[in-house]
């Protein structure tokens, strides 16, 4: 309401005829870079529509969009949960939980993402499968065959690369998001937790109803930016031969020798997805700020 009124007031003040200074100001503030961006999209669209070689590349590579989007979405969802609980663990008064959380975050932050993806896919997952087999054996010994059998029968080779890629991405991003959640929770004043506890709420009730709703609202833009980053970093899973757009573009280029067509298309496809997502994040950010103003 208030915002609308101010805008209307401004419009009334502004005379219909713009002065030279006002025009210069408008030119200075105009987001010219978006023109450049749109130019890139239009040019690429033109190439795809007019050149058969680009058309072939585009038709071939776009088949990977589904895998890229799906991998990102699933991994992001898991990373959110992992990040939230790790973030809560990092501020826990329990020193074991707090140190485990910190160890996880520091381990991940200290290793390049590409190396982590190799490590989790070829070392972490086999070790995890081994562990599950072992647990299955124990269950089998105490007679719980129903739980034991599926665990024992689990084989390393039966875990598809897509699953490994999703595990790798979510474990990596879980650590980043833990830091976002931790910062968000710590940005809420002490008085909020005190007021809630003074009313007889438990720690977890206070977290759930008082702290987290405010914290998550504060970190929504950061979480959104992480989603955009993750979409881009999902290209790294192509090293596991997961058929995302990067992998497919690589295959296409290698097979047809049309490197330019393949990689122009690939880059522009990523650019389109991230531009749309970034706009969405900015929109959410604006909405949150507006809510705060009205509140």
């Amino acid at each position, binding site marked *: 309401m208030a915002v609308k009124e101010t805008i209307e007031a401004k419009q009334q003040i502004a005379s219909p005829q713009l002065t030279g200074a006002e025009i210069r100001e408008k030119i200075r503030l105009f987001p010219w870079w978006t023109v450049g961006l749109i130019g890139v999209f239009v040019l690429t669209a033109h190439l795809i529509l007019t050149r058969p070689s680009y058309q072939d590349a585009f038709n071939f590579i776009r088949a990977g969009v589904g895998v890229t989007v799906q991998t990102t979405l699933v991994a992001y969802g898991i990373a959110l949960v992992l990040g939230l609980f790790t973030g809560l663990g990092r501020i826990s008064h329990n020193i074991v939980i707090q140190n485990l959380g910190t160890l996880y975050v520091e381990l991940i932050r200290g290793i390049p993402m590409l190396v982590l993806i190799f490590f989790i896919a070829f070392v972490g997952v086999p070790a995890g499968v081994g562990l599950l087999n072992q647990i299955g054996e124990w269950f089998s010994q105490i007679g719980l065959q129903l739980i034991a059998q599926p665990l024992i029968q689990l084989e390393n080779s039966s875990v598809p690369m897509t699953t490994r890629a999703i595990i790798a991405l979510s474990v990596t991003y879980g650590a980043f998001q833990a830091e976002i959640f931790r910062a968000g929770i710590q940005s809420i004043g002490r008085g909020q937790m*005190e007021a809630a506890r003074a009313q007889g709420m438990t720690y977890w009730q206070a977290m759930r109803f008082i702290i987290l709703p405010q914290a998550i609202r504060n970190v929504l833009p950061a979480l959104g930016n992480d989603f955009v980053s993750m979409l881009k970093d999902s290209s790294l899973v192509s090293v596991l031969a997961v058929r995302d757009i990067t992998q497919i573009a690589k295959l296409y280029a290698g097979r047809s020798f049309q490197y330019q067509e393949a990689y122009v298309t690939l880059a522009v496809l990523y650019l389109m997805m991230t531009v749309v997502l970034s706009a969405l994040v900015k929109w959410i950010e604006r909405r949150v700020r507006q809510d705060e103003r009205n509140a």
Partner: protein
Amino acid sequence: MNATHEMIQVINLRKKFGRLVALDGVNLTVRRGQVIVIIGPSGSGKSTLLRCINHLETPTEGEIWIERQKITGNQRQLNAIRSQIGMVFQHFNLYPHLTVLENVTLAQRIVRKIPKSQAEAIAMHHLERVGIADKARFYPAQLSGGQQQRVAIARALAQDPKIMLFDEPTSALDPEMIKEVLDVMLNLAEEGITMVVVTHEMGFARAAADEVIFMDYGKIIERATPEVFFSQPAHERSRAFLSQILSH
């Protein structure tokens, strides 16, 4: 002392923050319906004492009993006991993401499991009591400081508390808003609610307190009725404090 009338009992309470001794052997009994006003210079331990009573600070030594229930070392009962103690903070500490009505109903619903409609009826009753029922659908940030503090009082009252604790409730307010909050507190005092108030408002102490407690260096220096305390303080330090704040 008649045990049935004791609402709060503080026995030999000590609180240290690192090397700093905030409370140094405090003994205090508050009977049902009493209004106790705690005054003293900043850093004298008044707020720490108040915050120890509902265990927002963990005492280093000593015991606190609320109506014959020991609160110190009683982690299991702590939330239940706290839900019977209303606390009003210097900075209101309203929940900014919730409306006024939600602020007052939330704890009722999740701590005491009162159904929504009933909790809202209780909330509206208390919001009317503090004269702010017309702002029930507003968010805290849309209210003035005085209005926010009255909502905070309603939020505490909605817990149906046995005791109300006030931690410098007017210190963060603009001067023109102090009166509206003190008026509400005076009404509560007249209604016979057990209150412990840390404040610098000597007018309120005179008008509402059954007893005034003067603290300094983590100790209770003097305890007297307001008539006696303000006209003929017994201790040198009380006199020095009063002459400093009343000379303007």
